């Protein structure tokens, strides 16, 4: 099958991707237990069905042999056996679920904000990034909320999923077992860009996470303002809605925008300059450019002045 591109498989078994967190293995055990029981009963039912259809097919002139129309002992038997099996399933699912939902006390805390249609992960030192970077072999707790509508954070390899609800905080946690890069999806339908609300989980090798965090936080010290601005627009999810190559997405493209004159939905117009960009970042609903929806969240309190300046310089550089 592997020579057929269509049916190529990635790693893992047929049903599940490889389990890469401490609880994923337990989840898979529940999965395979239920799969075993379900397969057994399904094969039993279908086999009996086929057998009866063949054995007792209608023949002209032959009346059905017939059998009793009820049998309490039999009926109670096939009530009790499923009851026992589902009690076991419930118990397995329930104990593992408590493990998934109960985070260890010494977990590393990362805050998550979901917004249409990007992720913002904030680290304890104030750094924000659009990808989730975590150290290997250490429990990580995510405290999450949403800026707008309900989103849901899903990391298939870790078997975790939790909704991000506006107006309240939800938490989830995981303990990655192997360094590597994993997929992170939004699984609660959230509008136009739902299927673009994707990110990665980068699990760093021992010791590398701290180095990464330190360097990443020091963006402005180690880069030119234009480079830093480019990095900041990526990390803060700006690029989900604003392209840098001139194509219009949910918002206008950054390319060549600096110095243009924009007309707004309220009838006024203005030239795109430093002050206009700054206002658009801090109060995005103040002026909506004609032809676009009022969809952007505010970045007030989320970007420092220096960072906004870097973003302005970056946009100016995109001719």
């Amino acid at each position, binding site marked *: 099958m592997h020579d057929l591109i269509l049916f190529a498989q990635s790693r893992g078994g047929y*049903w599940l991707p490889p389990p890469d967190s401490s609880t994923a293995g337990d989840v898979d055990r529940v999965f395979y237990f239920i799969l075993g029981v379900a397969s057994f009963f399904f094969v039993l039912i279908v086999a009996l069905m086929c057998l009866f259809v063949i054995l007792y097919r209608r023949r002209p002139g032959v009346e059905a042999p017939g*059998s009793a*129309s009820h049998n309490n002992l039999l009926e109670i038997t096939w009530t009790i056996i499923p009851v026992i099996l589902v009690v076991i399933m419930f118990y397995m699912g329930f104990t593992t679920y408590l493990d998934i939902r109960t985070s260890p006390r010494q977990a590393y805390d990362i805050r998550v904000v979901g917004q249409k249609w990007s992720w913002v992960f904030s680290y304890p030192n104030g750094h924000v990034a659009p990808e989730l970077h975590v150290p290997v072999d250490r429990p990580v707790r995510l405290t999450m909320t949403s800026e707008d509508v309900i989103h849901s954070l*899903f990391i298939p390899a870790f078997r975790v999923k939790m909704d991000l609800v506006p*107006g309240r905080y939800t938490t989830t946690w995981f303990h990655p077992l192997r360094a590597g890069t994993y997929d992170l999806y939004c699984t609660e*339908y959230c509008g*136009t860009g739902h299927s673009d609300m994707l990110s990665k989980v980068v699990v760093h090798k021992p010791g590398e996470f701290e180095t990464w965090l330190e360097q990443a936080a020091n963006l402005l010290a180690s880069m030119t303002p234009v480079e830093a601005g480019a990095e900041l627009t990526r990390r803060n999810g700006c690029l989900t809605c604003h392209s840098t190559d001139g194509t219009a997405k949910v918002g206008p493209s950054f390319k060549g925008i600096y110095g243009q004159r924009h007309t707004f939905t309220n009838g006024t117009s203005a030239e795109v300059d430093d002050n206009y960009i700054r206002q658009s970042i801090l109060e995005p609903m103040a002026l909506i450019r004609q032809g676009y929806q009022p969809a952007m969240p505010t970045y007030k309190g989320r970007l420092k002045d220096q960072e906004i300046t870097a973003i302005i310089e970056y946009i100016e550089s995109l001719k």
Partner: protein
Amino acid sequence: MSDLLTEPRPAAAPSMDNYLTHARGFWSWALTLDHKRIGVMYLVSIVASFFLGGLFAELIRTELIGPGRTIMGKDMYNQVFTLHGAVMVFLFIIPGIPAALGNFVLPIMLGAKDVAFPRLNLASYYLWIVGAVFFVFVLVLGGLDTGWTFYTPYSTTTDTRVVLAVTGAFILGFSSIFTGLNFIATIHMLRPPGMTWFRLPLFLWALYATALIQVLATPVLGITLFLVGVERLLGLGIFDPKLGGDPVLFQHFFWFYSHPAVYIMILPGMGIISEVISVFSRKHIFGYKFIAISSIAIALLGFLVWGHHMFTSGQSKLASVIFSALTFSVSIPSAIKVFNWLATMYKGSIALLTPMLYALTFIFLFGIGGLTGLFLGALATDVHLHDTYFIVAHFHYVMVGGTLSAFLAGIHYWWPKITGRMYSEFWGRIGALMVFVGFNLTFFPQFALGSRGMPRRYYDYGEMLGEHPEFYGYHFLSTLGSYLLGIALFLVMIYLIASLFNGHRAVANPWGGATLEWQCSSPPPHDNFPVQPHVGDPYAVRNFQYDPDVGGYVRVAQTAKPEHPLHPSAH
């Protein structure tokens, strides 16, 4: 297979007045109070909305045949899957079996002349029409992109036609409530002498259980959608976190209706299967009381499990654990039914005619749909599988594999009674086979898609989802299957319509059923029963024997043949 059965002899043209010929003209239909005509009008309307919903389904699958844009943009895709869900759920599956087949069959099976409140019955049909018109308006005036679930705060902030859609669903809810109310009152008050509760055919038990849910759950959906509408129009704030409201409360309200609604969809289907399996196996149904009571049990337990849609919503751990335990309890009555159907076939005389093929399809597909529900009832696995294609596959196996198969079984089973014509058995079997293959090809790959992490309601699944080459193949197969399924259903419609013109005339009892509807002529007279029918055991199918002179089954003198003891060793 017996040729006696596959090719029933043409019956003589019906000399007597029947419900189709009783009165003529447009108004005799539009203002009819006859439950049979209302049932037929429902059937036509519901099938029309089914094909509309099916068109949306084919558009979705075509878009997903390969990664990236195929035929439509993101916003369009979101609207198409929303309307697919909303049309299929509110306009087709929920009213499908009860309002169309139930309306036609229930009073006749019961031995009554009509439902308890014929005017209310007609009113509920017109409410359905008004609700459907609202959905057409939604379609024409800018669409809807909330998903059929209307989750807040997305539904209160999007700029599509949410108010129109919730108004439509609200009106459809009242249509559903009035149908349920009518059925409960009919079954309670219009049973003829001799029709005791435990002589009710199982389809009526199922409709009764369904009606209980319709009456008890739908009002909560009504008030919920009303609140969403007012929220959008006035800024009520009850579901808006910015004003202190709670969006998760909406989910509780919504699923308090919409989970029981799943049983509105499946219970009547199970009722049809109980009838069909018994008649086509020529055996008394096995474990009548267990099946009857399990319908009621499913209806009542179904009210206590709504929280299993919300295991990852942030509801408390305790709530999730309780809902998980209750969810597993619902699986037991369903399992009992399946085992009882198998035991009915045991030592029967099984004719693989079209209705029976659909009944076997039902057992197969509902088996998969029900058993995969176990993965979702278990908390740990649900966290992984929730909102992925695994869910999509699971509920399509239950709703389409289950309800649609049963609906098709019922249509074919009662087609001679409704229309007075026999459809082509040959094309019927071909259609059933194509439905079976097409359906499995469409939805089985989606289980693996989901368990491997593909989220539902995604427009695209290209490289940005990561290294998932298997997604391409599964989506491709699924789309191919959906085309086959679409062609199959189209074929079914064509040969059924053709039978109206060139089908043999149907005799009163072509299959050998013992329930009362087979005692009146095909099609039934205006008043159903000129004389009060003889009410007996609804599953005493052996009391009806094939009579070659009639071309169908006729009642024979009751034989006091002792029934064979069941051999437990055979299981």
